[in-house]
């Protein structure tokens, strides 16, 4: 049997190779996320001043919405030629397939965030880079938590007829704690009187959610994917 990490690498590499060829998910999610931020910027910025905490909320809304789009498309590819079944038939640890898909989605969302975060900082005059390590920690932990649940649900729904509707319906209620923690943690860093202990507390909360969500996903992936 191919080792766990070997399988993760193979699946991630395959997904990224396909994305490099098509650039379909990256461009669509990026376009969507940037549009989202721009539209909100017109609504929430008056005379160069943004409504308090708006930047934090809009950043995480852009990440969550574009992440949903990326998750749906990443698994649509596996549905087109039923290749997910080919992966499930391979003599590998099935949770490694889940992790491979998750890492692929995370790389794509990381690329989207690399563009969206500076745009939010610019449009909302938000000091997102004042505490770069803490901000990066919040973004990484929040994205991992959101994508961990999303990857599981997107894989489960790959053969469902109403998957495009069902994915957000299932995903958002479960990931609300992650999004709230991300928003509150980011807001703590952006407020006039920066609250570092609060930001760290929300980051700890996000790490806790990540551990819970990833553990549950690894545990349930194989039974949930068995028909």
């Amino acid at each position, binding site marked *: 049997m*191919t080792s766990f990490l070997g*399988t993760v690498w193979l699946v991630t590499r*395959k997904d990224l*190779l*396909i994305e490099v060829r098509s650039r379909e998910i990256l461009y669509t999610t990026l376009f969507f996320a940037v549009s989202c931020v721009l539209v909100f910027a017109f609504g929430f910025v008056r005379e160069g001043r943004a409504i308090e905490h708006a930047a934090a909320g809009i950043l995480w809304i852009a990440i969550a919405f574009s992440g949903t789009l990326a998750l749906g498309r990443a698994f649509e590819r596996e549905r*087109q*030629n039923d290749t997910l079944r080919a992966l499930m038939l*391979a003599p*590998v640890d099935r949770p490694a397939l889940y992790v491979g898909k998750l890492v692929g989605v995370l790389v794509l969302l990381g690329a989207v965030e690399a563009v969206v975060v500076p745009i939010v900082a610019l449009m909302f005059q938000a000091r997102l880079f004042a505490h770069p390590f803490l901000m990066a920690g919040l973004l990484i932990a929040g994205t991992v938590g959101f994508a961990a649940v999303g990857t599981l649900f997107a894989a489960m729904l790959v053969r469902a007829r109403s998957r495009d509707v069902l994915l957000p319906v299932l995903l958002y209620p479960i990931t609300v704690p992650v999004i709230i923690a991300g928003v509150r943690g980011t807001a703590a860093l952006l407020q006039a009187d920066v609250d570092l202990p609060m930001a760290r507390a929300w980051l700890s909360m996000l790490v806790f959610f990540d551990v819970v969500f990833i553990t549950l996903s690894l545990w349930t992936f194989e039974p949930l994917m068995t028909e």
Partner: protein
Amino acid sequence: MDFTSLTLSDVSRTFGRRRALNRVSLRCRAGEIVALLGPNGAGKSTLLSIASTLLEPSSGAVRYDDHTARTAGAGLRGRIGLLAHDLYVYPELSPAENLLFFGRLYRVPDLARRVDAALERAELSHRRADPVAGFSRGMRQRLAVERALLHEPRLVLLDEPFTGLDDGATAALRERLSGLRAAGAMVLVTTHDLEIIEPVIDRAVVLQSGRLVPVEPGVGTLRERYRRLCAAGT
């Protein structure tokens, strides 16, 4: 992990209220080619999915010698090759990349040489670097056959393998099936191309309304016997 027989005992499968398979029993041995015939919607693909471990039966048992899909797990899956109606290839990747990806997942030894040989057999060597998206159905089918057989499986499950193939590719695949039997593989093949498959199979069974009926050897071609059986069953 290896095995030399596949035994389905009273296997039933329902999808909601629809019963796709109804107490199907079948035994295949190494070195045997069995044709699984039946009209559209008879449950042939469902039976192949169950034999491949991708689908669990609602009731009944599937055994690979003394193993089950649950006890043998990944080791068992590594000895099964499935060509399904959907071809299980990535259209954005080239044929060589597809074969290398699946070959690595299956830990196929001497992979580069085997991929070259597979592309040669599929007559795709000259298109080895082109994306599969630009291929005809027949070319994709030839690639999918090679993908299913790359790891030299013991149990070969083929769902309509002649779809889209021209005369030359059809003859080559028929020869390949004979080669697989000689190598000790057990082959379960569904097809409506009875004239093509008849010379290479050892026996045939028909799925009718979820039930399995053997096609007895006798007078006439396989298609004539199949039609008589279908007429008697309706």
